[in-house]
């Protein structure tokens, strides 16, 4: 923790904090916590001369600047992007800026996310965090969550830029006072304040201690886009150099000479309890220390992970039987269909009178869609290392919320949160899997570690990782559309299985006068959670496929129908147009190729995608190219934005072509990559990205590229074959090309 020499001065209205740092320098922050919490924390947590400050930015006498980032780096480039936002508002020299992960204490927590989403409308992925925060003093607090494509949108825009702008203004004030000149005559550039009239300049570091004595400005003025020097530039990511030489630490890389390794097997049927284990020859194997029995599984602990994993196979276990022991995907599908047939569900969105429009319709189009469960399959298998010594512990794990995961591990191990030290690491993929309240195995790892006085690293095998996930929900969705005598669509009638995780994902932007969208919640024993883009990944496939069906039924070009029904949504129209023109929509394509289109707004950004597809000699669909136009307002780091869009498309396309987790005998069938196949070099299409600047505030980028791609591909396949894809994945389905339909495009 940072030592300070004077009390923080708190501007209560603006939550800006300033504090001198021992040895010179200043911390300037935007208080994530309310000042009252801040004082409580200082009174109860600070030791000796320490003072805690919610510090986003630290200016040092040597003129270096440290930006503390409260979000996890899982490849989305957030450390660099938030660093750019602070540095630009500060007019800092980027070469003098260091970026550090903020420590896992609630003083670096992050209620800007809550403010962004709105306290009354918290997304479900945050509810667990809010409800379970043991250190919560205010109603909403204790968040270091990385998710919901929120880091730049909320933390960056609402706090980090404000802190940077405040710091710059204070440095200007200090310089003006020292020189005895009007502030208006001073300017900032490259970590210096200049007075051009006299040719004088001072480095920020020379002013840092003096700045600590100032009250922070109440309303620091943020830059206009035309004033950006660092934001909006494709700056190299700071996390990449350590990722090319093997030095970047991931949670799984925690290592010590004396550590032990645990291989874990959990009940294959979710929710089943362990009855007994027969350790067999396991304990006689080299290096094996113990077989640990847990409520819902068991672990072999050895001095090498391979030894633990080998011995795990020698253990025979009995789990209690459950009512789900014979549940299969086919049974769940029947349950979903029965629920949709037998229950009108609860309102998601209603306008006009869809039933009446369907009654009066000249033509009605009906379609039933479904998608399966999906695993996250992050490349770094879930793991956690804990070293518990008496009433203190150290924890290493890759997580999307360090603060909450620390709280969870502490609670499971029966320790005080403050007595657990969390060690940050990079994440080998997140995608929603490493949110704290679906990171189930943290509990098992803590309980296993409690049995030993050395560090214990618990690693899930790939098979366990895939079979003990919290899955993207399987969803069924039934549609009806009404057409009047002119062939215009007059009603959109939709019933889908819930639960809803992201409110509004099933809503449509299209100007259809009568809409009835209702959800029927269906319970299963399969655990579900956020999966990159959450409900948008399923709902966009449904909506953008069915609107395409409506276009074809009405004899209207699918692109034109969307444009016609999106008169109130100029940003949607704009990205559709950019993507369509770039992809060559309506112009000459290679023979046998067709274009499918889809558009979706999610997480504050709007993505239109065009898929160029053909049918191979073997009858299988070949995706040649995905063109994406993304209106994300503006991008803090355009190259990073493009990387996220490429990534999101490949993630969505992997699911569309291959992704399926199926259930037999209550258990997940798939266990490793051969049966849960991924896109690879050979199967990845060309990807063309257009960032469309609309002048709107920055939108999310980690997720919005994922939703549209499945429908875009399916819509192209329809043009090629006349076959409508209403179930994912497309998989090895063989198609017969119907050339006559290709002319519709």
């Amino acid at each position, binding site marked *: 923790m940072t030592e300070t020499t004077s009390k923080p001065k708190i501007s209560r209205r603006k939550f800006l904090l300033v504090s001198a740092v021992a040895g010179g320098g200043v911390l300037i922050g935007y208080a994530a916590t309310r000042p009252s919490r801040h004082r409580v924390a200082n009174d109860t947590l600070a030791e000796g001369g320490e003072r805690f400050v919610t510090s986003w930015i630290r200016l040092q006498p040597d003129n270096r600047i440290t930006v503390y980032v409260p979000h996890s780096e899982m490849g989305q480039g957030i450390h660099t992007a938030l660093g750019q936002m602070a540095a630009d508002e500060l007019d800092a020299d980027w070469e003098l800026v260091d970026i550090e992960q903020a420590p896992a204490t609630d003083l670096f927590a992050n209620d800007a996310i809550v403010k962004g989403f709105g306290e009354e409308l918290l997304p479900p992925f945050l509810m667990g965090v809010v409800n379970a925060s043991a250190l919560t003093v205010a109603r909403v607090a204790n968040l270091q969550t990385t998710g919901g494509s929120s880091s730049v949108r909320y933390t960056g825009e609402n706090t980090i830029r404000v802190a940077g702008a405040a710091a710059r203004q204070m440095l200007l004030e200090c310089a003006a006072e020292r020189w005895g000149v009007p502030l208006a005559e001073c300017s900032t550039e490259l970590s210096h304040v200049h007075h051009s009239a006299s040719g004088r300049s001072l480095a920020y570091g020379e002013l840092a201690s003096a700045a600590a004595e100032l009250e922070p400005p109440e309303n620091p003025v943020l830059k206009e886009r035309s004033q950006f020097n660092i934001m909006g530039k494709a700056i190299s990511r700071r996390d990449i150099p350590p990722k*090319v030489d093997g030095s970047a630490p991931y949670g799984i890389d925690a290592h010590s000479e004396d550590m032990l390794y645990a291989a874990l097997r959990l009940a294959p049927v979710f929710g089943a309890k362990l009855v007994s284990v027969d350790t067999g020859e396991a304990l006689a194997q080299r290096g094996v220390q113990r077989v640990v029995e847990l409520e819902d599984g068991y672990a072999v602990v050895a001095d090498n992970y391979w030894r633990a994993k080998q011995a795990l196979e020698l253990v025979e276990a009995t789990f209690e039987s459950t009512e789900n022991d014979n549940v299969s995907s086919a049974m769940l599908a029947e349950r979903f269909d029965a629920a949709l047939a037998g229950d009108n569900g609860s309102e998601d969105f209603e306008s006009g009178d869809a039933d009446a429009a369907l009654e009066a319709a000249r033509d009605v189009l009906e379609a039933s869609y479904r998608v399966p469960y999906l695993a996250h399959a992050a*490349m*770094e298998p879930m793991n956690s290392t804990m070293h518990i010594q008496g009433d203190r512990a150290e924890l290493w794990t890759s997580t999307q919320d360090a603060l909450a995961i620390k709280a969870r591990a502490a609670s499971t191990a029966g320790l005080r949160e403050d007595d657990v030290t969390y060690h940050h690491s990079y994440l*080998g*993929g*997140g995608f929603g899997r490493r949110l704290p309240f679906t990171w189930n195995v943290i509990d098992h790892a803590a309980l296993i570690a409690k049995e030993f006085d050395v560090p214990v690293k618990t690693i899930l095998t790939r098979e366990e990782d895939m079979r003990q996930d919290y899955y993207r929900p399987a969803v069924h969705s039934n549609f009806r559309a009404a057409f009047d005598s002119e062939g215009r669509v007059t009603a959109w009638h939709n019933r889908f299985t819930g639960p809803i995780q992201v409110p509004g994902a099933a809503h449509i932007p299209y100007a259809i006068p009568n809409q009835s969208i209702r959800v029927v919640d269906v319970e299963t024993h399969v655990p579900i959670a956020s999966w990159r883009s959450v409900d948008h990944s399923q709902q966009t496939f449904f909506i953008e496929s069915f609107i395409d069906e409506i276009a074809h039924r009405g004899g209207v070009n699918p692109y034109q129908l969307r444009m016609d029904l999106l008169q109130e949504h100029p940003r949607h129209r704009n990205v559709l147009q950019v993507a369509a023109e770039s992809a060559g929509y309506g112009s000459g394509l290679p023979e046998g190729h067709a274009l499918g289109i889809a558009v979706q707004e999610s997480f504050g950004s709007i993505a239109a995608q065009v898929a160029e597809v053909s049918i191979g000699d073997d009858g299988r669909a070949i995706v040649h190219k995905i063109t994406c136009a993304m209106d994300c307002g503006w991008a803090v780091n355009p190259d990073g934005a493009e990387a996220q869009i490429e*990534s999101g498309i490949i993630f969505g396309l992997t699911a569309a072509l291959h992704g399926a987790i199926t259930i037999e005998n209550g258990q997940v069938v798939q266990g490793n990559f051969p049966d849960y196949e991924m896109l*690879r070099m050979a199967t990845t299409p060309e990807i063309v990205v257009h960032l469309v600047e609309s002048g709107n505030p920055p939108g999310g980028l980690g997720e919005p590229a994922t939703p549209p791609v499945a429908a875009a591909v399916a819509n192209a396949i329809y043009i090629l074959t006349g076959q409508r894809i209403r179930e994912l994945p497309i998989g090895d389905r063989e198609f017969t090309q119907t050339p006559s339909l290709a002319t519709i495009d």
Partner: protein
Amino acid sequence: MANFRLNGESRELDIEPEMPLLWALRDELGMTGTKFGCGIGNCGACTVHVDGNAARSCVTPVSAVEGRDVTTIEGLATALGGDELTPVQQAWIDHQVPQCGYCQSGMIMAVSSLLERNPSPSDAEIDAGITNICRCGSYPRVRKAIRALASA
């Protein structure tokens, strides 16, 4: 006893001959740059070089590298001439290839081996030669970086 050279240094380990090289590296030697992804030789996150050729260390028993040269991501630069970064590693920075980065040790080892054998691979040769999984989808940038290296 297992004996092999790791990044140029002789190593002797008292381990089972069937222990996969991956776990000898990670757990016995603390060399954590080489990653565990699937355990069945499918994803390529554990790729190392054995006598200069790419090998998936999670399915390579240490007995198979007895007396041979093993190079991991930590020793790649030294093994290929001693510069701070190899051209492949530098291209990975220039083209901003990694995202989460977890698969990239294996990806870089696989690509380095491919380019050693075939300095100017066609797209089809890249597809056939690089079968590693990157869940973040860095593939377009991997291809861009390889093309740049091939034309350099």
